[in-house]
């Protein structure tokens, strides 16, 4: 938690509570009530059941990355990581929720380790924020471009191994889910993206929680005779169900579902991105308006999507060449560093600064510059999610079937060609089918950003909501046009360094 900003909304507390109650009470659908799927997810070992196959796939990916073909399109590590995993992850978040964290294979290794290793250290109070994962997230994007990770099965395998090592070290030393909440860059990506998901883990009936004495959803259950024996974990990310709002910091681990003695926690439908339109005090998080680290995460999430796509199209090389000549630098790392700084730091600072200035000057919003910027930064995350969907969805759909020949080849390589000869012509859906989908994702993201911005503007300036909305709508549209421009550029993927 970081510095505090003043509460911004001029709506009365009564209005806001009623609004939030209305939001929280909308429970028309519960995934846990669906036949077959509901009982499966409600099963105490459902998470482990889902993690085991992904863990097995991870091991195969690492082995193939180290020992298999050096050519990226023919290796399971690169194909599954950069084509299927990324695409499936964002599509699952769009259609349901944070399902990857639910089935996270890294957590399986960590849970196994914790059978014997019981950490006692608490995560340092000063680090209980999102700044470390933000730096790691940008670092991953930077390394992806600099080392051409997509082109190197060997480096990709090392990324997977490094991830396993990092979670074992962090969660081997620190209690609770410190890695998930304060370190994991994939987790933070999932958390901020899942604010636009249609499902969330939430209480079914708030009145049941009012009468609850045990609070097992956060405390968990322990053996009555020995408090050291945990029968069922409570939420390891400090999300107390009755006060939990939205998907931020929720890994969908379902510990709360299993812990609740009243069977009062479900996976409920809600308005996608609705949690960005309100600013209640969220359990384990606080108010979004007072979390400049989470606002920064939303900004990096949005502008990082542009940078990640920009690194894959032809104009980036013209810009890099211009930078080399203009600044007389040869280092690729330095050139990329300048590009990243420009797109992820300078560009948002200028654009958001301009939008804040107009909001304050034109709409009469009296709050400070930083407070306004933080409040409206969250409105950019749906558009960012649209861009991630468009980018990763493109690779996923156009390379959907590539797993078939790569798997055939992997079996053939170990002398057991049970799947037959690799059919390398199996690739994926045609671009004519995929491209409309990509623009649909972008339009969906733009619509989400505009809706969130409108709702925030309406709350902030009852007299001039259009004036408060206009600069953020204009910013969203400008970024949307940038996304469209990027998606229409010719792809040009060069592994600049280190590709094996």
């Amino acid at each position, binding site marked *: 938690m970081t510095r505090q900003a003043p509460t911004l909304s001029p709506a009365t507390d009564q209005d806001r509570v009623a609004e939030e109650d209305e939001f929280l009470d909308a429970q028309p659908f519960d995934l846990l009530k669906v036949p077959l799927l509901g009982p499966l997810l409600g099963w105490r070992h459902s998470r482990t059941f889902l993690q085991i196959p992904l863990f097995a796939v991870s091991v195969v990916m690492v082995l193939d990355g180290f020992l298999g073909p050096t050519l990226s399109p023919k290796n399971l590590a690169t194909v599954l990581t950069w084509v299927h995993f990324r695409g499936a992850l964002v599509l699952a978040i769009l259609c349901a929720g944070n399902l990857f964290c639910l089935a996270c294979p890294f957590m399986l290794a960590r849970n196994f380790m914790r059978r014997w290793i019981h950490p006692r250290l608490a995560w340092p109070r000063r680090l209980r924020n999102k700044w470390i994962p933000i730096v790691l997230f940008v670092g991953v994007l930077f390394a992806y471009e600099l080392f051409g990770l997509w082109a190197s099965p060997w480096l990709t*395998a090392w990324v997977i191994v490094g991830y396993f090592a990092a979670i074992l070290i962090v969660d*081997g030393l620190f209690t609770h889910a410190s890695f998930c909440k304060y370190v994991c860059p994939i987790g933070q990506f999932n958390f901020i993206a899942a604010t636009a998901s249609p499902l969330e883990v939430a209480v079914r009936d708030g009145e049941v929680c009012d009468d609850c004495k045990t609070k097992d959803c956060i405390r968990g259950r322990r053996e009555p005779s020995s408090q050291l024996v945990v029968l069922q974990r409570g939420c390891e990310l400090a999300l107390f169900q009755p006060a939990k709002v939205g998907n931020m910091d929720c890994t969908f681990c379902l510990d709360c579902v299993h812990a609740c003695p009243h069977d009062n926690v479900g996976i409920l439908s809600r308005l996608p991105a609705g949690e960005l339109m309100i600013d209640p005090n969220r359990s384990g998080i606080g108010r979004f308006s007072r979390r400049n680290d989470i606002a920064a995460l939303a900004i990096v999430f949005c502008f990082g999507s542009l940078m990640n796509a920009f690194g894959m199209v032809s104009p980036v090389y013209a810009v890099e060449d211009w930078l080399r000549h203009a600044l007389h630098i040869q280092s690729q790392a330095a050139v990329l560093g300048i590009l990243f700084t420009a797109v992820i730091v300078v560009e948002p600072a200028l654009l958001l600064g301009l939008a804040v200035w107009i909001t304050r000057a034109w709409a009469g919003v009296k709050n400070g510059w930083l407070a306004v910027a933080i409040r409206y930064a969250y409105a950019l995350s749906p558009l960012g999610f649209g861009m991630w969907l468009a980018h990763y969805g493109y690779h996923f759909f*156009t390379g959907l079937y*590539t797993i078939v020949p790569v798997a055939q080849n992997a079996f053939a390589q170990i002398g057991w060609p049970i799947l037959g000869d690799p059919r390398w012509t199996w690739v994926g859906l045609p671009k004519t089918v995929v491209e409309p989908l990509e623009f649909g994702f972008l339009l969906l993201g733009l619509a989400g950003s505009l809706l969130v911005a409108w709702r925030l503007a309406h709350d902030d300036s009852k007299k001039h909501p259009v004036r408060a909305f206009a600069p953020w709508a204009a910013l969203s549209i400008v970024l949307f046009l940038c996304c469209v421009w990027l998606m229409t550029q*010719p*792809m040009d*993927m060069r592994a600049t360094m280190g590709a094996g």
Partner: protein
Amino acid sequence: MAASPCLRGVLMSVALLFFVASGCRPAAHDEDGISIEQTIAPQPARVGTETISFRLTDASHQPVSGAHVQVEGDMSHPGMAPVFADATEVSPGSYTAQLPFTMGGDWVVLFHITLSNGRKVERQIGVKGVESN
């Protein structure tokens, strides 16, 4: 937190993996004695059809004639459609193929060579920075 035998085991496994993985990066080999010298035209390589001319020689630098060669182009990024072309022999040991590069970026060109005696050989070259139109 005491360093239990389990923790020591985990740390030793990680260290072992590090050493194994460090040493297992595959290297290019030329064990069968077949060498390939190639040129790509026009230069610089651009999106569109490029002519790949190559010469196959054996260990004694004699031209390898009568081989069937399928040329395959793959993007450096996974999930992209590969392109294929059959090479034709224009003179003893010299072959040419028309390969359609479908997008800009780094390509890897594979030569699937079936020698006249039925033996199969694979060769791989990198084509860096194919330019977009």
